[in-house]
């Protein structure tokens, strides 16, 4: 690309536009496709970031023609796209829609798919570059990539590429994650497999690295000398909704901690990478993930719960065990909290508390770095009663930004100190025109830019961290020694989670 005379590294107005390419979408009728992928593709086109001739091929077990598929995309774009609907953008996209009906085990269908792709290369100039987006349950990954291989769809000809895109869950434990990697790795090389963890596409998550490594004032205190502990929270106010089939047997820890929260932990705790390319970042992330250890007594340092019926945000809601499709005896947790240690010089002795849950007080994701108390306070005890610990809170969503919490004198009093907030709002809306995570990630797939995608090594390391906890919980269930503790819907989780921090002399922040 560097020999393109119209390109100049100093010309930063010019956006990165993906080269000639197309995408094949498996699972076109699912929520993920309709609410995230299709709108993101439109938004990319609207921002002028897709190549002329970009083509989207749908594959599903439906008796559809191309225009039926176009209608589905049209409806989803109208309902969910971030940017305005413009007829000319739609025209640009619409000519590239194709639909191939068929089952995942249908050889003829995959033959048709291959012909469709070849035709697109011919008619639309996609140049043999195709990404296969598997927006389908992981149980089918094996079938689909097997078919792709068998029908010669996975192999790129000289000078072109084939990539596969998958979504979580990346297995349900270390063994199944390895199995999955085995299936994918047999067909696609590691750097052609793009795992989407949409958290990593968020601007605020990328901002963690900017904040840490572009500034001078945070890094010197970013260690066990000053940091008391770290709390990473992802709370949802909704229940499992209609996802009982997916959620039962998976639970909060597998669903959220394994990927999102451990990725956040690695970004917060990692050492400075030598550069921001994919390889250097991966090295640092893997280093920090491999230095994570668990406390000895898992019964005292983890907590799990299930939401109970009650009132959440003024709405009467059923408990987890009363949700449709959930067995009354289910021991799937909807709340999970764990304590992790990071055994490095920087973090030794600083616990990382990770928690996630459904039906909690509000929807919020944040990372809170809680600092130690000042070693000496030259104030009377009475004047610092309301002074807590200093904290730096990175708000991932919503209300993206950074809060610094510190003590300040209450005006008018003799000397009374109270906690106050200093707020940076990541945009009353920088965010308004900042892209959705999926836009960024899909564009990166088409560009072949991997820094924001976890590789299988990271996935396996995070299962190594989580597996002992999951085993411990399973053992408790079996022995009948414990089960997820019911917690009030609309609150902040089970009492056992509070007790878990109380044992360390700490409390959860109310996020």
């Amino acid at each position: 690309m560097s020999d393109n005379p119209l390109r100049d590294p100093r010309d930063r107005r010019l956006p990165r536009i993906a080269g000639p390419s197309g995408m094949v979408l498996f699972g076109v009728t699912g929520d993920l496709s309709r609410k995230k992928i299709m709108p993101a593709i439109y938004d990319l086109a609207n921002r002028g970031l897709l190549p002329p001739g970009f083509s989207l091929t749908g594959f599903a077990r439906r008796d559809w023609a191309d225009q039926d598929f176009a209608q589905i995309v049209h409806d989803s774009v109208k309902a969910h796209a971030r940017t305005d609907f413009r007829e000319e953008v739609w025209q640009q996209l619409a000519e590239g829609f194709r639909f191939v009906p068929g089952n995942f085990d249908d050889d003829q269908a995959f033959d048709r798919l291959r012909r469709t792709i070849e035709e697109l290369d011919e008619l639309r100039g996609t140049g043999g570059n195709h990404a296969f987006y598997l927006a389908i349950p992981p149980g089918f990954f094996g079938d689909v990539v097997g078919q792709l291989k068998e029908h010669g769809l996975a192999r790129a000809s000289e000078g072109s590429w084939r990539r596969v895109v998958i979504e979580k869950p990346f297995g349900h434990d270390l063994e199944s994650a390895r199995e999955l990697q085995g299936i994918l790795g047999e067909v696609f090389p590691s750097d052609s497999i793009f795992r989407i963890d949409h958290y990593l596409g968020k601007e605020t998550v990328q901002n963690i690295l900017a904040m840490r490594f572009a500034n001078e004032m945070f890094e010197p205190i970013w260690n066990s000398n000053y940091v008391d502990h770290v709390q990473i929270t992802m709370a949802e106010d909704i229940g499992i909704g209609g996802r009982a089939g997916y959620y039962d047997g998976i639970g909060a820890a597998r669903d959220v901690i394994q990927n999102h929260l451990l990725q956040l932990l690695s970004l917060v705790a990692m050492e400075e990478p030598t550069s921001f390319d994919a390889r250097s970042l991966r090295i640092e992330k893997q280093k920090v993930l491999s230095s994570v250890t668990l406390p000895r007594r898992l019964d005292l340092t983890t907590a799990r719960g299930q939401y109970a019926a009650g009132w959440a945000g003024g709405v009467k809601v059923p408990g987890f065990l009363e949700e449709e499709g959930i067995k009354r005896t289910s021991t799937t947790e909807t709340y999970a909290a764990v304590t992790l240690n990071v055994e490095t010089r920087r973090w030794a002795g600083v616990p990382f508390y990770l928690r996630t849950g459904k039906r909690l007080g509000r929807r919020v994701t944040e990372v809170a770095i809680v600092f130690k108390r000042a070693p000496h306070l030259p104030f009377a005890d009475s004047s610092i009663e309301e002074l807590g610990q200093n904290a730096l809170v990175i708000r991932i969503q919503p209300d993206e930004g950074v809060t610094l919490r510190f003590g300040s004198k209450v005006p008018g009093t003799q000397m009374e100190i109270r906690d106050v907030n200093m707020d940076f709002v990541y945009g009353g809306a920088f965010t308004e025109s900042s892209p959705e995570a999926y836009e960024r990630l899909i564009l990166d797939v088409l560009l072949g830019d991997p820094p924001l995608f976890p590789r299988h090594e990271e996935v396996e390391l995070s299962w190594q961290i989580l597996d002992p906890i999951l085993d411990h919980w399973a053992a408790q269930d079996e022995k009948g020694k414990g089960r997820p503790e019911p917690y009030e819907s609309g609150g902040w989780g089970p009492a056992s989670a509070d007790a878990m921090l109380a044992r360390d002399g700490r409390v959860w922040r109310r996020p």
Partner: protein
Amino acid sequence: MIELTNTNSAEIATELRRARVRAGSPAMGMVMTLVIVVAEDDAEGAMRAARAASHEHPARVLGVILGDARGAAEIGAQVGTGSGWTGETALIRLKGEVVKHPESVVLPLLLPDSPVAVWWPSHPPADPAGDPLGRLAQRRITDAAAAVRGKTKAIYRQCEAYTVGNTDLAWTRITPWRALLAAALDQQPLKVTRASVTAERISPSADLLAAWLADRLKVDVTRTSSSGPGITEVVLETREGPIRISRPDGRLATFSSPDRPDRPVALKRRELPELLAEELRRLDEDDVYAETTKRLLRMEASR
């Protein structure tokens, strides 16, 4: 909106602070000050565009209307924090002697430490960097296409006056064209032998685009006229055949290249808020624009 008459900078600053506290948010998330030097008639439209752009770049927006310079100095201002947007705004009307010293009014109202951009929506000064208000800013935005006087020559005048920090919306307007042309050569790295740009007779954007192509490709670029709207066609000739982007309606373009099928590409002419937002995204020197202005002047001289 609070109306202040017979006022001064200190009072305007106090009112801005009061308005912020009244709105319940004493914290300042603003990243820059945007000064708009505007005529009374264009003020409303320009302020609206700035408000829209400030969604991406929360800013203190100071509209300055320079009135009749004769008579006693008089300053009036409308001050407010907007509902529905993130920054704060003051529309300041100057009359009398103070019209010659607008920087004395604006300087005390600049946000501490953060960058300043100044925008002339319609009447750009001949030398933006030498202008009393332009001198306060890191970014000076003119719009040759909206110039009222001397329209045909407006862009050349701005190119002559170019110095670090100057920019023109005529340049901003062609970013999508440039992006598409660059992408075309990414896809097919062909050697371009000559090029042409077709647009309305008076089109500063087309002149800049032609100059940019000439500068980057080191080939002759012809500039021909059509009835518009805006730029209607760009052709890069190569030995294998032409790469052609034609956009007759100002919205949807057709992209053709050698041995490839024709493809439609959305290429809409963008509105002011979008242009302004792009312009405010980066406030350091635009080297490529600097080179393009030089090339444009050379092309004009050799014509």
